[in-house]
């Protein structure tokens, strides 16, 4: 479980995050949603420690990340996996070497044991026959899947995904969403996904936080979101006419 309490973050004079608090549960896909520029990525990067917060607490299973020493932070980071928007695979390494990298860096496993773990993770994300290819030789969807494989290779307790569906076609997006959701449930990890994709919200949104202009506006789950009275959230969700129709149909059904 990850808990954030009263998070504030500014860049120079601009206040980007204002008093955000939320509990992200274990075994659930926790979503941070909001428009582009709303502060989602800053919040996610603050949670993982890529940005230092100005005020507030970030607790990883009651361990305070904000006051932790660099040494302890590095250790805690070995319990984290992150999937970046563009995949962030290392260009100079093959698919297999990318996935094996954390194992090479932090474990004492033999090469055979590492290979077994790499094969397991690549199989888990439905990638085969691409082990020896370089990231430039695979598609966007495959890059995301390799990034997920690399993120879970160390059996993390916490998984973070920054816009995992950006640049993907709807079908591949669905595959990625399902994959992240099933990994979260199967491995019982705490997953936080940063997205503005409403399809993802409706597919896998177990626990949703909506932020706008750096402020927390709403929290709930995917069934509650269609009935929201929150004006800002309505503008965000029903910007897509498809969801207006879904809402109207549901209301008519009632």
């Amino acid at each position, binding site marked *: 479980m990850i808990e954030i309490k009263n998070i504030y973050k500014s860049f120079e004079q601009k206040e980007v995050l204002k008093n955000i608090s939320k509990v992200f549960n274990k075994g659930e896909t926790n979503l941070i949603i909001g428009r582009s520029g709303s502060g989602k990525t800053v919040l996610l990067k603050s949670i993982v420690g890529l940005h230092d917060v100005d005020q507030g607490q970030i607790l990883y299973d009651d361990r305070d990340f904000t006051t932790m020493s660099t040494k302890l932070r590095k250790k805690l980071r070995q319990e984290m996996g992150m999937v970046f928007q563009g995949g*962030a695979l290392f260009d100079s390494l093959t698919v297999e070497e990318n996935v094996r990298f954390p194992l090479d860096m*932090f474990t004492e496993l033999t090469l055979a044991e590492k290979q077994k773990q790499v094969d397991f993770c690549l199989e888990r994300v439905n990638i085969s026959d691409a082990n020896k290819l370089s990231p430039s030789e695979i598609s966007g969807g495959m890059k995301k899947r390799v990034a997920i494989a690399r993120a879970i290779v160390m059996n993390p307790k916490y998984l973070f995904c920054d816009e995992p569906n950006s640049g993907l076609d709807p079908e591949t997006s669905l595959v990625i969403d399902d994959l992240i959701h099933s990994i979260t449930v199967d491995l019982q990890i705490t997953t936080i996904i940063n997205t503005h994709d409403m399809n993802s919200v409706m597919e896998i949104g177990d626990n949703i936080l909506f932020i706008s202009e750096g402020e927390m506006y709403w929290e709930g789950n995917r069934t509650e979101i269609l009935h929201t009275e929150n004006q800002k959230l309505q503008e965000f969700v029903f910007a897509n006419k498809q969801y207006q129709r879904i809402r109207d149909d549901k209301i008519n059904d009632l």
Partner: protein
Amino acid sequence: MRMNILNQTGKYFSLLLKVFSKPERHSLYMKQTFNEIETLGVQSVGIVAVISIFMGGIITLQVAYNMSNPLLPTYLIGLGNRDTLILEFSSTILGLIMAGKIGSNITSEIGSMKVTEQIDSLEIMGVNSASYLILPKIIAVVLMFPLLYILSVFFGLIGGMIVGPAVGAVTITDYLNGIQYLFDPYYVTFSLIKCLVFGFLIASIAAFFGYTVEGGAFDVGSASTRAVVNTNIMILVWDLVLTQLLL
């Protein structure tokens, strides 16, 4: 402007502190260092050889052209070429050229990793990205630059030996006598010290500009240019300082 320079200098030294912290896994760093020696050092041998042969030939021609007095012995042409190569060309001028070749390579590689979040990805894993990416490059360039210097002197002398006799400015015997005449080994020691310093400057300054880049491909290009310009200036400043201190 002054604050900006101070700010950048402070950031440079704080990055160096991060670079020289304890590596997570020595074997991976070692492997990375050998890769960098190959990429940054061995792959520069060709260009160093070509430039040095031509420059050796050109310096020989220029010395011969300026020795219009028939009373001056022609073996001085070899001596002039040797001392120019040993003292300045193969260390400083080659340093400036390598700042362009190796430096821009380092900045663009690290800068591209930065803007595509590969560096963030390393940090999330708990890897000291600065140390993992920059330390092997610094070690590789500091180790390889003195070797490139020695190769450059060798090829420069060969260049002079080809061009001098070819244009009839000096005989091979006189040229060979000249390059051995009044040889002071300290000149080589002095230049090797300069190479170590220049190697460090080239790798660390280029890495700094790559590591601190923000934005996209355009910014990586700008950072690359700034890295080369700043490295060149620092090489010249340190050349002046070391010449005053050591010669």
